[in-house]
């Protein structure tokens, strides 16, 4: 089974040519993962192989329960696959690593820490001095529009605000590989656009590898170089879709709209 190579030519994108050489390459080799449910095995990952180039942005879409979170957790080192392995820059991963940061599907904030402390948490556990960590945390808090809530406690936040704190926490550590699990699902359309633009900007600036689970096809097309489409039915193989649009992308550009329509149709929508 031939593994998926990184896009042979980043045709039509404005990625700098150095990209292929940059760090953060994620390579997945024949991943199998199943869970036991009602004493039966539920096969979630069924021999998935895939390579994401360093600095690439990959979106993962697929129906609820198809294994997106599971895949992301395997990549993060939080879940051990039954078979197969994950390589990062050629080295097999065992457990979590500092080059990766994950934005969970639920916010997972420390209930006893202020918003600022929660955002600085990632940096602080990595040994960054407190003052510096807080400075950087403040920067990313501003980015997600929560500068006014620095001292608030998680229970004082709305759902979308809590999710944005989780986003800021992951961004603050400036990982080589950023794993995002539906980070913007709880955001209103306006805030979502802002954060999407910020993510695109940060990604362009910092050139980290970005692997984004999302339900929003527009978001996938806006942010990703390629889109991985997973399915729940055991018969349908995963598909990989390239997004050959120049950046920064215009959601109203005919190419964008066409791509979105195609993708939706492939899901049986509209």
């Amino acid at each position, binding site marked *: 089974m*031939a593994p998926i190579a990184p896009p042979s030519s980043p045709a039509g994108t404005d990625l700098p040519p150095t990209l292929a050489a940059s760090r953060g390459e994620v390579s997945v080799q024949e991943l199998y*993962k199943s869970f036991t449910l009602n004493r039966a095995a539920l096969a979630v990952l069924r021999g998935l192989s895939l390579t994401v180039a360093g600095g690439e942005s990959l979106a993962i879409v697929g129906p609820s329960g198809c294994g997106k979170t599971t895949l992301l957790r395997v990549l993060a080192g939080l879940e051990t696959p*039954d078979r197969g392995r994950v390589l990062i820059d050629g080295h097999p991963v065992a457990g979590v690593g500092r080059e990766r940061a994950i934005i969970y599907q639920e916010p997972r904030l420390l209930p006893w820490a202020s918003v600022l402390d929660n955002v600085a948490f990632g940096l602080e556990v990595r040994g960054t001095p407190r003052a510096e960590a807080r400075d950087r945390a403040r920067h990313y808090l501003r980015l997600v529009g929560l500068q006014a809530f620095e001292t608030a406690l998680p229970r004082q936040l709305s759902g979308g605000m809590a999710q944005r704190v989780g986003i800021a926490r992951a961004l603050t550590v400036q990982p080589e590989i950023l794993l995002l699990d539906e980070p913007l699902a709880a955001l209103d359309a306006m805030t979502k656009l802002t954060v999407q633009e910020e993510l695109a900007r940060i990604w362009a600036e910092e050139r980290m590898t970005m692997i984004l689970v999302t339900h929003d096809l527009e978001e996938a097309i806006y942010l990703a170089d390629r889109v991985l489409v997973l399915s729940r039915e055991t018969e349908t193989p995963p598909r*990989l879709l*390239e997004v050959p649009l120049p950046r920064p992308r215009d959601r109203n550009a005919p190419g964008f709209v066409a791509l979105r329509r195609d993708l939706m149709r492939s899901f049986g929508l509209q």
Partner: protein
Amino acid sequence: MAFQGLEISVPPIETPARPLPPLSGANLRRGVEAGARVLSRYGLLLGFLALWQIAASAGWLNPSVFPPLDRIAATLWQGIVSGALLDDIAISLQRAGIAFAASVAVGVPLGLAMGQMPVVERALDPILQLFRQTSALALYPVFILLLGLGETSKIFVIFWASLFPILLATIGGVQQVDGKLLEMARSFGAGRLTLFARVILPAAVPAIFVGLRLSGTTALLLLIAAEMIGANKGLGFQVMNAQFNFRTDLMFAAIFLLAFLGLALNAALVAAQARFCRWSEPR
């Protein structure tokens, strides 16, 4: 746009998650592993007992206070085969058992009520705190006056002391129940009782079990205090009586019996907790 289906490999047959086939020599290896597990678990305990035996028989420790383990074991064995200690075990188990059952029967519901209903908590807390701070040992004359010298006062002393760990742990457990779940249940119209049975109780189970384990131990330990007065049977009585007569081998035999009972109760509670909390995430 291009679906790059070719680049993705899907295996021909879907047989995931089959366990690895057994390796040759696996049984041997499993045996060694089990041995290592036992050692890592009981190594320290065995080391402690070995040290005791050596220190006592080599005379590093005063053997009249620390009899060698083999002497204790012999005394224990003799007491059991002669049936002398069996009576003690039976009566002590009965006393501790009734008292423990009573403290569970009182402590868990009361703890659930106090944890959940501020009115009840406010009303009962000061007097219970006062009682809790009062040693069963010191109050023994009072218990004797009020309850006599018979089983009642002994059981009550044990009950008194073992009530509070379970009560406190239950209250603590209830107060830590996820408020969001409580709110959810209430918003669906759950009454007080349903809330108890369906949300508070299951959520407080781990904390209640900590309380049960503390109380169980307390009940067995309090046997010694309870059987100091008005008793002529029981393991606690044997401990103190052996002490009074300087029979340290018998004293340790009774202490070990009490400890074994405690360990058995503890193991039973841990197993029960594992059963009750099967839903919780394995770590």
